[in-house]
Structures are given as structure tokens and as C-alpha cells.
């Protein structure tokens, strides 16, 4: 598409400038319309993406893959509408702590996830609390904060979608993605 590289460059520049506004992405021209409400076609992600880290739940979803459960590091479970670390969560965190100490160059992203019960925006905030409480615990245990980033996906990227207690429990978790060692 004409000028798309130019737009991408503009977007990168915009990321460096606190005040946004210059980064525009124009959708397909009316000639290649696919039937949007104004007949101007769908707006795609080209030129807007700053990218999710490889292996993250969003990057996997973009490849059509389900979110990973567990992995190199264990998932941390939570009770409903809670971001407190309790028995099972602390046991899993102890294992993850060992791994982080054994791999001192590794950086990880902690993803906060929620079950489907509750409002979308509230769950985004709850997922942020969950990821942060895990990060705070690890920092208290001596892991450098610069090795730990956090993100919330709320209820947006569930590992299962049945309306059952066992499925809800699987979705209430903090998940670790290893960004590099």
C-alpha cells in the first residue's frame, strides 16, 4: 500500500514523542471496500502495531494459538475478585523464585488474567492488580524489578470458556512469559 512505510516511520517517531497525534493510519481506499458502515473497508493493524512480545498470550492469539498454561514457570492461581497471594499461589511462586535465581539474566513478563465473571474494564484493572502483586512479592524476595514487567489481559484471553467453577479457576491466574535469558 502506497506510503505505508512512511506511516510506520511516523508511528515510531510518535512513540518517542510524549504528545501523540501525528500518527495516522489510513484505511483502504474506497475502491477496495469490503462493506464497512461507510463503505470504506476495514482498518487493519498495519502501521499501528508496536507489538506484543513473542510467546505472550496476545502474540499467541494473533497466531491462532491458545494461551499457554504454565510453561517454564508456573501459573499463580487467585480466588474470585481477589489479587491476594494464598497457599497454592505462594507454593508456585517459591518454584518460580528458584528458577529466576538460577537464571539471573532472564527477564519475564507477568500477565494478569481473570475469569469471565465481572465487567470487562473492572477485570482489566483486577488483572493489573494480580500481575503487580506477583511482581511485588518477587521483588521483596530479592529479584530485581527491572527483570519483571507486568501486563493485564483481564478476561480477554481465557484458556477455557465454559461457565464452570473449574474453568473459571483456570482463568484466574498470573502467567509468566520468558522474554529472554
Amino acid at each position: 500500500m502506497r506510503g505505508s512505510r512512511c506511516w510506520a516511520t511516523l508511528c515510531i517517531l510518535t512513540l518517542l514523542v510524549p504528545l501523540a497525534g501525528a500518527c495516522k493510519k489510513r484505511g483502504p481506499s474506497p475502491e477496495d471496500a469490503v462493506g464497512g458502515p461507510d463503505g470504506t473497508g476495514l482498518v487493519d493493524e498495519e502501521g499501528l502495531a508496536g507489538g506484543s512480545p513473542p510467546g505472550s498470550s496476545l502474540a499467541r492469539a494473533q497466531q491462532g494459538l491458545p494461551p499457554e498454561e504454565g510453561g517454564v514457570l508456573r501459573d499463580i492461581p487467585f480466588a474470585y475478585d481477589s489479587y491476594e497471594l494464598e497457599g497454592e499461589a505462594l507454593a508456585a511462586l517459591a518454584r518460580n523464585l528458584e528458577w529466576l535465581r538460577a537464571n539471573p539474566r532472564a527477564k519475564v513478563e507477568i500477565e494478569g488474567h481473570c475469569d469471565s465473571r465481572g465487567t470487562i474494564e473492572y477485570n482489566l484493572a483486577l488483572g493489573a492488580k494480580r500481575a503487580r502483586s506477583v511482581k511485588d512479592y518477587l521483588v521483596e524476595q530479592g529479584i530485581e524489578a527491572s527483570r519483571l514487567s507486568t501486563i493485564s489481559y483481564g478476561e480477554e484471553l481465557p484458556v477455557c470458556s465454559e461457565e464452570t467453577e473449574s474453568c473459571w479457576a483456570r482463568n484466574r491466574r498470573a502467567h509468566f512469559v520468558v522474554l529472554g535469558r
Partner: protein
Amino acid sequence: MIHLLSILMLVVGLTSPPSVCAVVTGSIFGPGSEAFPIAVLPLENLGGDQGGRLGSEFARILSRDLRLSGYFRLLDPVTFVERSESHGFAAAEPDFVAWAALGASEVVKGTVLVAGDQITVEVRMYDVAGRRDVPEVGRRFTGPRTDLARMAHRTADRILQVLTGERGPFDSRIALTSTRGGGLKELFTYTFDQEVPVAVTSLRGIVVGPRWHPDRRSILFASYQQHQPRLFQIELASRDVRPLTSQGVFLSGAWSPDGLQLLVTREVGGNTDIYLYDAGGRELRRLTDHWAIDVSPAWAPDGRRFAFCSARTGAPQIYVMDIAGGEARRVSRTGNYNTSPVWSPKGDMLAWVTRGSGGFQVVVQPIDGEARTITRHGSNEDPSWSPDGRYLVFSSTQSGRRLLWMADREGRTQHQLTSGAGGDSSPAWSAWLE
């Protein structure tokens, strides 16, 4: 002759004040009363409407709007005593005696003329008991063929104005997110002539919390295009997408009624608070400062207050606060999980979502009055008020898949709006399109 009549009708339609409000007594006049048995005839083809398709489509859309309003009982067309194609509409009044025998209190009929891409629609409503034309409804529209649906919606809104004293809400749009298409949530729009929403974006970055700009030309949303969720605005006509925030983490934003400021939910260090931003994406003021979750700011229509959701007492509840600052005042008094507040366009009521024993339900409450639950079945989330303040749209699993539903604010009527694959969420009802 026809031309002269059209011009007369146009003049009448434009100049008459909406003075005729049917006087209906009794306590249940309102959505759900089905107070008006009405017959909507297909538009008579004055030329160019092949197979009468446009005329039938107009009647279908108008009938659906009137049914959704809850004020009407639509008479079954198979019982109709006259067919629009058998009479010269402009010249002939309906057969009032026959319509009265069928039980109709109003009859809507009209004509369509197609000339190239342009269509001309004339529509009139007749009061059967009064045996007269109701000139306040009479209207002549000319425009491109693609405007047919809006002509029908505007007619429905006008009929509601004349019969109920308040303009109907159907000449509007609903923004929503949906996983229709099989992938991540994208931005869609829906109008009342559709059953299936139309995709606007294919960003593949999870679109959440769409909100209209007050000019109805663009939609604000949060999306993960740049790893963390941030705010973007899409202009519908050009499809330009513009980031409003380029640093930080933002879960939602809402334009002030004057379009000059934004209330945003911003996450810093795992905690969310409400901030006031200017239209250029610069922080003006932090409005809440609490270690607990503060989310979902909703402007009052006067632009001086806002409602939001906070878990500061340990569980999410609804609070109201002045934009100028000060104490947050709790307004939700029952239930231990109340989220997603929205302020009615007249300023008199709030709606939100509450968790009850049977799932999540929509609640409506006068600011300092009693809360009323308006949904009963399934999981119901993210209410948004109609521009006239009589209805709410929300996502619901009442029929299985998550789809858009609408209810009147008393909860007497519940109508499923979208159908099919589902995955519809976070509806935001626009202001009137004009």
C-alpha cells in the same frame, strides 16, 4: 398534482410544531404498554422500485423500530384490508371504517419513487378514530438509495415524538466490540435495520470499551496495538486511526459532553485511577487517588460530575464525584459487586451492572432513589443509554450466546437486537445522528 401535494406535505411536515400528543391515560402508558395498534403498509411504488423491494424494506425497518419501542402492537400485514399497490396513495385516504374494524388506531403508508441512485420517499400517518391525517408525521425525504434505512428510522422517531411526546431513539448507531470473524475483539457498529453488526477494524490487538465522540463522527477505544493497552480514536468516514495516548497504560476513555476533555482510567504500578485529560492527550488532573481499583468513569450530561466504579470498600461499588474534585459519594447501596456505571442523558438516573445470585444484571437508579433491576435472565453487562433516555442497550446471554439486547428503563420490555455467531460486547449508543 402529485408534485403540488408533495410540496404541500413537505411544507406542512416542516412547519408544524409537534403539538399533537395523544392523550392516553392510565398508569402503564410507556414501553411495554403496546398502547397503539398500528398498521404499517409497504410503500407504494411510484416508479423504479423493482419488485417493491425498497417499499417493503422501509416497512420492515419502520415496523421493527416501532415494535422495539414497546409502545406499539404491529398488525399482521396478511390481515390488511388494503394493499398499498392497489391505491393511488397520494390521492386516497385509507379506508378508515375497515381499519377500525381491524382494530388499528394508526395507519402508516407512503410512496417511493426511484430515479437513478436517488430515491424520494413520502410517508404519512393516519389517525383511524379521528379519520384524519396526522400532519406532524407527514414527511418527504429525498436522498441516495443507501439512506432508505435512515428515512425509516427518522419516521419511527417522529411517530414516537408525536404519539408519546418524546422523540424516538432509532436514528442512531451503536458501537460495540465483537469476536465475530473468529479472532480477537474488533470494533463493530450496529444500526437498527440490521441483525448482524458490521466490522470496522481488523487491528488484531483486542479492542475494548468503545465510546462515541459527541460529534458522532469518531469512536474512542482502548487497544493493545502497542503492547500495553492505550487509547485510540477512529474517524468513521476516513477510517483514520489516531493514538490519543502514546505512553502509559490506559484501560478506557470517555469524551466530555462538549468534546473538549476526556476522563480516562490509567494504570500506574498495577493500580488504576481516574484522570482528566485534554483533547490532545495531555494530563490535566488526577481525580482519584486510592490504592484500590478505580475504573469506568462516566460523565454526567452537565459535564460537571462523573460516576465511576471503585473497590475502595473492598468490593466494587458506584460513586459520584465532582470534576472539580472533592469527596467521592457512594450511590450504590445494595449488592456487593456493582460496576460499569452510565449516566442517563437527562441526568436524572444512573445504570450499572450488579452481581446477584442468578448472574450479572442491569440496574437503573434515580441518583438518590431506589435501584430497580431491569434484567432477570442470563449474564447482562455494559449498559448504555439511548439518546432519549428511555432505553438501554447491553450485552446479554439471555438467549445463549452473548448478543446485544435492549430494554426500556423500567425493564418491562426486553428485545434481542443482534443474532448469529455472537460474541458481541461493550455496546455504546450514539447520540442522534442529526
